């Protein structure tokens, strides 16, 4: 469970997060949606202690992320940011294996190796295992990063735009993987997603933000309404039921 209490954050004069309070329950996929600059990524970064909050606090499993020891938190919460410009030349296997660092401190056990293989298999990285990251396409690299975070084995997995650089097939596959992590492995997955229909099709809960404030949160079906989408995105959106899913169509 992730408890966010009155978090505020400003960059200069711009208030990016304005008194946000939110509880993300254990299990399932929660998607943060909103227009550009709504504060989704900042909220995710604050929750993952990558960015310090100006006010308020975030607790993961009851631990304050600002004060909890780094290594302890690294076994509870894994995070991947949107921008991952990495100049380090590691092979895919080496990168994924670093996901075990919080557990084994670099000396991998047989169990660690098994988990590394498993994470690579999940994301179909087996054939790329010994390739260097700079030899991969953007999408392959993105899958490798997510595999590393998965390999970290944390109960909470926070991903900022995990579909970055992925083509249609791999985007669908990634969302299925994340679904599997939530359903089969019981992980709590929190995503920042810019496509509201991806959020609608794959997540259990939606958190809608606008201009640094929380607009609404709740089960996906309840939030996928034309009224709410207009409020969040500032554009008229029709919502259609398609094969049991609610799809927002903004091009009317």
């Amino acid at each position, binding site marked *: 469970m992730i408890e966010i209490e009155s978090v505020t954050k400003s960059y200069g004069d711009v208030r990016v997060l304005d008194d946000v309070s939110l509880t993300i329950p254990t299990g399932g996929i929660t998607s943060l949606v909103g227009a550009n600059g709504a504060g989704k990524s900042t909220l995710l970064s604050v929750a993952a202690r990558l960015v310090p909050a100006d006010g308020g606090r975030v607790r993961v499993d009851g631990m304050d992320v600002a004060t909890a020891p780094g290594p302890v938190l690294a*076994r509870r919460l894994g995070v991947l940011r949107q921008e991952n410009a990495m100049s380090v030349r590691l092979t895919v296997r080496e990168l994924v294996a670093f996901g075990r660092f919080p557990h084994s401190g*670099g000396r991998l056990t047989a169990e660690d190796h098994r988990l590394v293989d498993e994470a690579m298999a999940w994301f179909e990285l087996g054939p790329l295992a010994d390739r260097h990251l700079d030899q991969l396409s953007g999408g392959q690299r993105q899958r490798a990063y997510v595999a590393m975070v998965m390999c970290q084995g944390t109960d909470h997995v926070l991903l900022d735009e995990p579909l970055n650089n992925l083509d249609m097939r791999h985007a669908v596959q990634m969302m299925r993987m994340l679904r599997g992590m939530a359903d089969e492995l019981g992980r709590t997955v929190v995503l920042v997603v810019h496509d509201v229909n991806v959020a609608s099709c794959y997540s259990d809960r939606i958190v809608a933000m606008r201009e640094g404030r929380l607009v609404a949160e709740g089960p996906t079906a309840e939030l996928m309404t034309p009224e709410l989408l207009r409020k969040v995105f500032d554009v008229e959106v029709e919502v259609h039921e398609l094969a049991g899913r609610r799809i927002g169509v903004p091009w009317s």
Partner: protein
Amino acid sequence: MQRRHVAAALAALVLASFASLFIGVGDLTPGDVLDPDAAQARVLWTSRVPRLLAILLAGSAMAVAGLVMMHLTRNRFVSPQTAGTTEWVGLGIVVATLWLGGTSVLGKMAIGMLFALVGNGFFVWLLQRLVLTDIVVVPLVGILLGGVVSAATTFLAYRFDLLQSMDAWVNGDFSGVLAGRYELLWLVLAATVVAYLWADRFSVAGMGESFAVNLGVAYTRVVLVGLAIASIVTAIVVVSVGSIPFLGLVVPNLVTLAMGDNLRRVLPVTALTGAAFVLICDVLARTIRYPYEVPVGMVGGVVGGVLFVWLLLRARRRAL
């Protein structure tokens, strides 16, 4: 690169090290080692062996220091020689000599380390505040900084008549290495061992701050420890034998080009290659004008400079 390659390289280095013992003006052949007369034993134990040890220690430690700095600044062209670290040590030596009564080697080293730490810290502080996207601009800033510091050093040395002794640390030279005058160099071995123990942390820090925080690594502390290791090694080497240009830059680049950036794997090979690089340069320095010697810093400058240009051209090509 496989284990056997590393083993082969190690064997070659051991052989070359042994052979290097017999290069010099004093008459000494491999056969004499088994049964040396008094003069030969003196040459061997007061000059040749200490010189070899100094070469291996300085070469391996400087290469590793470069490797660590390259990871922590996330830039392949940052090393003690391109971040101004050696120049800060030089300034420290002059300041120690002039005002702190630091004529002892240990005193110079301590002040040199302090200056190197401040200099490295300043460089990293500067990097975090400048928005530099071009990989080549970052080391240029370092070289610029080094130029300013070295100008200040030269000015002081000129005013106080120290230019002669300045040459000792600007130009690396092993000809002055004698038993009793190089032993502080063993300290760099300790620094190298610490770097190896922290290899994974440096790798993680090299992935960037958010990756490091995610994996529970105390980013700032790791950066500080790495900079301290680089500063300590640079100060000890520069005070003991002088600067060897490009060593900390070219060697880590060549090794990581072949083996990738996983420090735990790469660090031992970097240390070996650094030792081999300096050994080769020193043997060249001893034989080019035999029976006279040229400073190893000069040979290193030429050999390393050519390799550096090649690396730069290669980086440009890859970036396009």
